[in-house]
């Protein structure tokens, strides 16, 4: 059988290698090269979805070969309902953000090489089923991201890049300790996530140990998600990163944390997860309300979107806390949605920044008349982001809240307050940017270009379609989540 999943990881690597060998004077070829590569990755991942069996709960397209025999480390890849959506999301955003990279003008070769390396790392993280492999990819993501922010970023890029790198690294070091403990606790020693989960259900980890291991992994994931109070790298990194990288940061990197919780914390440490459910819920509501409140206070467009990410990821946390089918479905769907919607939001900020070279919302005004298509995109994305029914953001939030309400009615009620505030700051943003009399400075802004439309339209179409027909995504993830829940000992 054709190794589809390996091809997903190695295609970007091959592309990177090809660009690396481009002569310096033909640097301009690196963009088409990267576009072809990411386009192929997108096509492969789309084919993956079509070939995916929506009824099977287990791993599909699995590839397994021994990597380091002495340590029982395997090169083990596979997709299931949890990862398939995120793999597609990564491929899609990877391609669209690559399209949107035309604003990058200098050091093209390095940029695209790093970009493709980042792609490989992200896809690998979602596909790896061996903890060592997972850790390798997890770290591989960091390095290109560090350079992409640090070289092509905004005025405070060095600060943001270092902060991002160190912060995430600090988390993953703790995770590494967790991985090793998990490895040495099981007999025979294994890094295989599925075997670990099976061992866990046979009582390989006693509850006390589970709690510690859970915390070790959770810290790494919480920083990535990011959960209050570990969120402060995010506004800096998002604001300083160039537009395409912000898209990937918000769209994919944040999902790696949530994915890790689904893939590792919940199945391998079910009791540990269960004992922290309340903490999850509390942190979730803090994320939602606090993130929304801080977003309300922003005058910088991009920073506002960054804090809105914090707020939205709170719903994911709330979904985790629910420990039931509705909540899990909601959390996973919300991750997908957030990737699509916030990705589009960052693209929109980039469109505006390209024209105005500022992100202060008060410097705009009345763009609705000047750039109607832009206004349309911004409005519909804001509406999706604030959870308007009929667009996909609503379904994810609705399911998360519904799931969480069962166990935590008061916390859920509190988090509803975040919905109001979210509506407030998004509409306030629209009021400042799109409405009102046309700001004279914006007189010469051109409307969204065809290329920009090409990057935005697929995302809008996806969140509208998923909003109308959420079963498209939910059906993919349902069997796997059902199995996960039975592993957690939750019936129904």
């Amino acid at each position, binding site marked *: 059988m054709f190794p589809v999943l390996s091809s997903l990881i190695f295609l970007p690597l091959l592309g990177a290698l090809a660009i690396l060998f481009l002569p310096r004077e033909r640097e301009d070829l690196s963009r088409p090269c990267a576009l072809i590569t990411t386009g192929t990755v997108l096509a492969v991942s789309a084919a993956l979805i079509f070939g995916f069996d929506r009824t099977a709960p287990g791993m599909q397209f699995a590839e397994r070969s021994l990597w380091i025999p002495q340590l029982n480390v395997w090169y083990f890849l596979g997709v299931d309902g949890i990862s398939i959506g995120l793999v597609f999301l990564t491929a899609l955003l990877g391609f669209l953000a690559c399209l949107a990279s035309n604003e990058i003008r200098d050091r093209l070769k390095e940029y695209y090489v790093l970009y493709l390396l980042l792609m490989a790392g992200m896809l690998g993280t979602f596909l790896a089923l061996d903890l060592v492999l997972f850790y390798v990819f997890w770290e591989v993501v960091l390095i290109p991201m560090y350079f992409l922010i640090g070289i092509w970023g905004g005025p405070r890029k060095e600060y943001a890049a270092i902060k991002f790198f160190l912060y995430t690294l600090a988390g993953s070091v703790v995770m590494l300790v967790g991985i090793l403990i998990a490895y040495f606790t099981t007999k025979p020693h294994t890094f295989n996530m599925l075997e670990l989960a099976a061992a866990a259900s046979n009582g390989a980890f006693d509850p006390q140990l589970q709690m510690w291991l859970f915390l070790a992994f959770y810290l790494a994931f919480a920083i990535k998600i990011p959960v209050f109070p570990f969120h402060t790298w995010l506004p800096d990194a998002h604001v300083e990163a160039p537009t395409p990288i912000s898209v990937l940061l918000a769209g994919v990197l944040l999902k790696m944390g949530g994915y890790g919780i689904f893939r590792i914390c919940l199945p391998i440490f079910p009791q540990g997860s269960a004992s922290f459910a309340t903490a999850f819920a509390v942190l979730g509501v803090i994320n939602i309300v606090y993130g929304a*409140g801080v977003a309300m206070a922003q005058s910088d467009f991009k920073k506002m979107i960054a804090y809105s990410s914090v707020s939205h990821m709170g719903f994911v946390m709330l979904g985790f806390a629910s420990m039931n089918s509705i909540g899990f479905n909601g959390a996973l769907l919300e991750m997908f949605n957030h990737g699509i919607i916030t990705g589009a939001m960052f693209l929109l900020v980039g469109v505006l920044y390209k024209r105005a070279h500022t992100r202060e919302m008060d410097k705009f005004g009345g763009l609705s008349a000047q750039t109607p298509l832009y206004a349309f995109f911004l409005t519909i994305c804001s509406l999706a982001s604030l959870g308007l029914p009929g667009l996909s953001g*609503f379904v994810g939030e609705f399911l998360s809240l519904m799931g969480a309400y069962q166990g935590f009615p008061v916390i859920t009620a509190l988090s509803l307050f975040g919905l109001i505030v979210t509506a407030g700051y998004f509409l306030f943003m629209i009021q400042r940017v799109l409405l009102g009399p046309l700001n004279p400075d914006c007189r010469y802004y051109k409307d969204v270009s065809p290329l920009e439309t090409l990057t935005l339209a697929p995302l809008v179409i996806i969140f509208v379609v998923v909003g109308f027909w959420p*079963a498209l995504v939910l059906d993919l993830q349902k069997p796997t989540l059902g199995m996960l829940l039975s592993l957690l000992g939750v019936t129904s």
Partner: protein
Amino acid sequence: MVNVAHLIPLFPFLAFLINIAFGGKLKNACGPVSVAASAISFVLALFVYQGFRSGGGSYSLGTWLSLGDTPLNFGVMVDGLSIMMLLVVTFIGTLIQIYSIGYMQGDPRFSRYFAYISLFMASMLGLVIADNFVMLYIFWEGVGLCSYLLISFWFEKPAAARAGLKAFVTTRIGDTGLFLGILLLFFTTKTLSFHDLQQISEGHGTVLAIVAVLVFIGAAGKSAQFPLHVWLPDAMEGPTPVSALIHAATMVAAGVYLVARTYPLFLVDPFALQTVAVIGGISALLAASIATVNNDIKRVLAYSTVSQLGLMMLGLGVGGYAAGTFHLMTHAFFKALLFLCAGSVIHAVHTQDIWKMGGLFSKMRVTATTFLIGTLAIAGVPPLAGFWSKDEILSAAYQNGHTVLFGVAVLTSFLTAFYMSRLIFVVLFGKPRSNLHPHESPATMTVPLMILAVFAALVGFVGSPLAHHAFQGFVGGGESSAASQANGGMMILSTVISLAGIGLAYLIYILNVNVLPAGMLSRLNGLHQLLLNKYYIDEIYDAFLVQPFLGLCRISYKIDLGVVDDLVNGVARFVAALSEFLRPMQTGLVQNYLLVQIVGLIILILTLGKLCFRY
């Protein structure tokens, strides 16, 4: 023929798609597209009505989403209440869209306007036929969105942009209540379908009363009930036909519709009904009193809408299910008429200040006549529509023993008659107060006015004793049978109240009689100021809710930067400080390093040497 009900929202939605996609090419054809779509919907609604009469009912189109084990269906609710709403919305909607073609002529975003209106129609009709809470909530937010888009339609005006934001956020506060109610209901009863409400209302006790109150919060937000009423007057920044359609006839009535739809929940506990009635009463009186002094033609009507919606809520709250829904229907007609008339006037004189108008009657005969009919209808002069429905509410309040609320309703009726008469006396009669050149509006505007005027005058008969309360029987609600008995005394009372209100206005504004002694007048000055400033509710909200909240946001941002982020950076700074302390060890002087090396060598010899040489 009932099974075409789900197509009713579809046609306006198609019109929306056509207008948004091809608006630039269609230009002036956009209006007719939307009108045609809602006309088709109206015809379909008639078919559904026919089918319902011959025994059709609700049906389902399949599952949309499953919540654990509970499937959420694309269900279509077909009963008296929803058919009544379908007919009213499509009929009035069609007329208002015809009117809009004239009113919006020449606007640069003509096609956008009709696209939004069509989207609104689709959402509103979807809301009406939704058979479960989630579907209803989806369309509920949909109409809210359209309301937002249309209020800030003329977004160049900062006031319009602000009003849109205010409307959306205020109603969203209410929606949050509704959302919570939905969650609570789901986890208490495991169902969200409206069909099951009657059945589940037994056996769950007071939890359902809480659900009912939460649902009512949602309804209060949408229907602009106190304390969430503040957005509606500001919403008048939108185009006038929008005010007529969304903010008078249909969307704001959705709150009342929701309460009526979930009435079994409210019947569980008297407390829930009490809440509805009291809030309704407060809103009715509060808004009516503000309307008596306001000088903006549209805002008077907006406060009147709040007041009338309050009256409907009051009617529902005192147990008059049929009375409330009946008033909902009649109000839709005459308030739409009034707004359209106001629109026609504004179209002619380009101002909204009533004290700049005057003597318009002779210049705009059609508009003025229909305006007059609408006013008489809302004032409750027999035998116009408002008389019958208001009478029902008064009877219901009286007969169910709510004396105070009855008093409130009577006072509101009086004030309604007074401020509406004041409005037309000032606007239509007397001498022109400023240099305006009014002219009659085009036929696309006057024809809908005339049609609506006929209905505003006559639609009340369907629920009158003369028609044996056919309407009440149609929408159901057997508990209203007590109210449905003809009550001669109540009719006379309500007529007297209306005439008294009109008479008082006539005395003051036509004859310029000083009704009150001068001393009293000056003492009332304070009250006048209070009313003119809308009880300072906006200011109170701003000072005690909005600004403190925004301040809190800013503080939390400061905390985020100063505390949360600083803790992180503090760790970094601690490490840096530590390195600052250790860094001088790296002097860069080779000899220092060598010296350290020698010291190390000595230590090595001292420790290892002990092992090797045993000394």
